[in-house]
């Protein structure tokens, strides 16, 4: 049995799942000041002395990292940057505790200037004087050669400090994003560690020896004790739960769009052949662009409780929310009121809904019924326009080979999955988009189901340079020598072996390690008209999805 718990902004949901059947579910209010308490409350509703020994794993989503960042409850971090020449660091918003240090490597990972130990020691003293305990070290092109970051770390390390290294968090290129990622990782390390300890205490308290997993931004799980060094991977755990919930409740193998229509916003996500799309470079949080692998989702300011106004003779919906629908005692007319007035949904006070819409109808010079209909249609149109725009953006994403440009995958949704309170607007959106809609079962606890059934995901990035006779796996901080005869197939093999070990270490069951090569390129390196080696680039991932036998839809108990 699996216990899945999703800590949402309003509710904390828990589900018990056995053989992909929903056994029990529970819903409690989230206490934003004490997430642990909400977790415990939800868990205790489902766990009993009888079933505790049948629970194989507990999987949690957590808002702890996201909240810490958004609410600025983070530690002060000293950032040590080995930036070398290039883009002026003044162009970036780096904060005040930045220390520039000598040393950098070029695009091939070849050291150009070495780290200077005397300088690092001076920086170390300054950091000590400023009483900063969390440190991030980031080098330009460190994912092409992690050695300088490691050298600097060795000099800065002492027992009172925690150090985050840029290359360990992502194998991708992007120095400014690597800085942001490393900074956030260092900044939330403390608070996250506290959370992990609380969870471990809880497990001890219930007296069971159950492995606990955390849902990451990419919709994959990781053993909680393995997540301590990379807490930043757990940002956006909540939205990821939502998308995994669609997978868990919908039978999906096709291209699709999913909408989670809430009170204030509508979240749009996209699936290619039943697999949720990832952000191409990494997710953004609190205005910072990171290298964190995360599920693609776009939030727009239209929801069931958005304020509806008439401006310049036309309807305007959102983006602000000023309370619940008028039918439920709220101050302003909302799309929910329109649906209630239209009779599309049946709750709240229909007269109050009509009364709230009446002034709008007057301004539009139509009757209340027509105004209500216009509001619902307008909301549907706004959402469908965004969906179209997002698909156009995704399908027009730049590519770098002729093959991809001419033959690349184009996403053509076959189904629209809609969840959330105001899902009743779904038929109108589907009509605009021209494909059918579906409202999955169990949508009230679908996030928790997504959490419970998500598999472990991971990625490794291999760079092999046979001229240098060197292979680098950035995320693992590994540099090893290779023979001149090393070829693409060898790199793929190393990638798969490494990924399998990594995923197993993160808690994946062997049957859930389904690997996919997402990048495999081999370039002849020619210097002065002679081939001097090969530059080989490989990425292998376990893509987001459900644990192996969980691919089928969750059935009723």
């Amino acid at each position: 049995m699996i216990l899945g718990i999703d800590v949402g902004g309003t509710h904390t949901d828990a589900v018990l799942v056995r053989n992909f059947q929903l056994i029990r579910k529970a819903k409690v209010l989230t206490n934003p000041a004490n997430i642990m308490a909400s977790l415990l409350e939800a868990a205790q509703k489902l766990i009993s002395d009888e079933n505790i020994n049948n629970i194989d794993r507990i999987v949690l989503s957590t808002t702890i990292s996201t909240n810490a960042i958004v609410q600025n409850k983070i530690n002060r971090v000293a950032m040590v940057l080995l930036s070398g020449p290039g883009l002026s660091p003044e162009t970036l918003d780096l904060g005040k505790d930045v220390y520039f240090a000598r040393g950098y490597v070029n695009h091939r990972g070849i050291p150009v200037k070495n780290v200077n130990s005397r300088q690092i020691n001076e920086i170390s003293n300054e950091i000590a004087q400023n009483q900063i305990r969390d440190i991030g070290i980031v080098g330009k092109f460190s994912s092409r050669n992690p050695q300088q970051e490691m050298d600097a770390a060795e000099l800065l390390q002492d027992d009172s400090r925690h150090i985050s290294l840029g290359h360990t968090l992502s194998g991708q290129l992007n120095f400014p994003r690597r800085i942001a990622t490393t900074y956030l990782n260092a900044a939330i390390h403390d608070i996250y560690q506290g959370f992990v300890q609380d969870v471990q205490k809880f497990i001890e308290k219930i007296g069971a020896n159950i492995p606990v997993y955390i849902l990451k931004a990419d919709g994959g799980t990781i053993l909680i004790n393995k997540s301590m060094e990379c807490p930043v991977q757990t940002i956006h755990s909540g939205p990821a739960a939502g998308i995994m919930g669609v997978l868990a409740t919908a039978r999906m193998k096709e291209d699709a769009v999913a909408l989670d229509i809430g009170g204030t916003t509508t979240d749009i996500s996209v699936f290619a052949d039943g697999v949720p799309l990832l952000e191409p470079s990494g997710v953004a949080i609190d205005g910072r662009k990171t290298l964190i692998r995360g599920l693609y989702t776009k939030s727009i300011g239209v929801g069931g409780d958005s304020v509806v106004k008439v401006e310049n003779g036309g309807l305007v919906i959102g983006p602000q929310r000023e309370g619940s629908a008028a039918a439920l005692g709220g101050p302003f007319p909302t799309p929910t009121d329109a649906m209630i007035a239209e009779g599309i949904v049946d709750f709240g006070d229909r007269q109050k809904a009509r009364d709230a819409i009446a002034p709008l109808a007057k301004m539009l010079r139509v009757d209340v019924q027509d105004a209500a209909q216009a509001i619902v249609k307008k909301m549907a149109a706004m959402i469908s326009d965004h969906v179209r725009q997002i698909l156009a953006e995704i399908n027009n994403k730049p590519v770098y080979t002729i093959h991809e440009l001419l033959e690349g995958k184009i996403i053509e949704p076959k189904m629209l999955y809609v969840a959330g309170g105001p899902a009743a607007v779904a038929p109108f959106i589907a009509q605009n988009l021209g494909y059918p809609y579906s409202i999955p079962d169990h949508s009230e606890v679908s996030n928790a189901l997504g959490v419970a059934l998500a598999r472990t995901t991971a990625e490794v990035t291999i760079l092999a340079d046979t001229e240098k006779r060197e292979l680098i796996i950035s995320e693992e901080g590994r540099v090893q020598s290779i023979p001149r005869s090393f070829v693409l197939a060898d790199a793929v093999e190393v990638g798969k072996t490494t990924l399998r070990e990594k995923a197993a270490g993160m808690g994946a069951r062997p049957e859930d390690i389904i690997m996919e090569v997402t990048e495999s390129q081999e370039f002849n390196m020619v210097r002065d008209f002679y081939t001097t080696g090969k530059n080989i680039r490989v990425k292998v991932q376990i893509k987001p999805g459900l644990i192996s036998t969980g691919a089928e839809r969750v059935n009723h108990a």
Partner: protein
Amino acid sequence: MPKKLKKTGLIFFPAFDWAISPNHPEREERLLYTQDQVFEEGLLDFPNIVEYKPDLATYADINRCHICVPNPQYLTTNSHLISAGGAITAAKKVLSGEVDNAFALVRPPGHHSMLVAHGARGFCNINIEAVMIEYIRHQFGVKRIAVVDTDCHHGDGTQDIYWNDPDVLCISIHQDGRTLYPGTGFTDDFGGPNALGATINIPLPPRTSDEGFLFVLDNVILPMLEEFKPEIIINSAGQDNHYSDPITNMSFSAQGYALLNEKLAPDIAVLEGGYSIEKALPYVNVGIILAMAGLDFSQVREPDYDALRIRQSPEITRLIEEEAKNVMTLWKKKKNLKKQVTGSAAYIRREKNIYYDTDNIMEKQTETVRVCDKCGGVVMIDSAADTGKRIYAVILPNSCCPECRESGENFFNRMNSSQYNHVYFQDRQKNVFIVK
């Protein structure tokens, strides 16, 4: 010093699956390290730098500026349609106002492709700037255009296509033709009889460094642009003047390229050559992108940059100053040269031997242009290549006068096609292309 930010479109298409041949300079690896550097610097995350996917150019786009023998289908692969399409995308984004300027960082290049194309020369099959220029004239009605070719090799293809066009100012700065392919581009190449001064060549001595390039820019190119008043400035941005380029002998740096771009402020830049793929291109391209976007490029520097080592000699400085003076003297006389060049002739003829190094083809060509005071003049070309193909072409210029149109149409209609494989009619003004 804070600069004015510009919205810059970037069309980046490295064609990682295409090469002329495995060890050729124009191979898959060419923009690999450029991509690495652009990605690592995070340039695509700047809100004022927007990346676009290239369009594919059509055969009709190519037929607006080339006479491809036998046809563009035969002469191009998808890679060429994409690189020309990338240039078109750049132009569209600029002319529609979506961005302030754009850089087509695409391959393969095009500036050695001439009006008549029997094959590939200097790694170029079709002239991607010319395809773009005719596209924007046709779609956006742009009239006056300047092309500043900063590739190390003479932009002989672009020069050839616009030789008789007074509305397209083609300025090429390059390493002296006596020391480098294609061996042309001397100052006395000054344009056809109806377009004198619309072709400008400024050959520079080997080992010219930043100082020399920027001197020519300030003292020749910018004053000419000031006077010509183009609606659009296009930079054929070859990167092989770099001190580390393996097939040239100049001493230009990434800083120099960025400064040149900042001062020139092209509306559209299109990548041409540049084969120091590891030591130059990553830094030059980052410098150019930052300069176009109005971002600080002062700290962009090659790892092995050494200002003293690449500094040009006083002798080179003297030569360049002298040449700049000569070119400007000629430029100032351009309006008075016509009588001298044409005399009383009604038609001017020039004979050309063109070698296609990439495809190893030899072409003999006779180009005849009608002397005309109202337009660029109708052009007739008789071209025979050692592939056995002989063709005849009539080309009406972009703003063709009625007399030239009438004589051009007559030439085409009367032309007996029996001795030619094909006879072409290219009407750049009305966008008509006929083959018989």
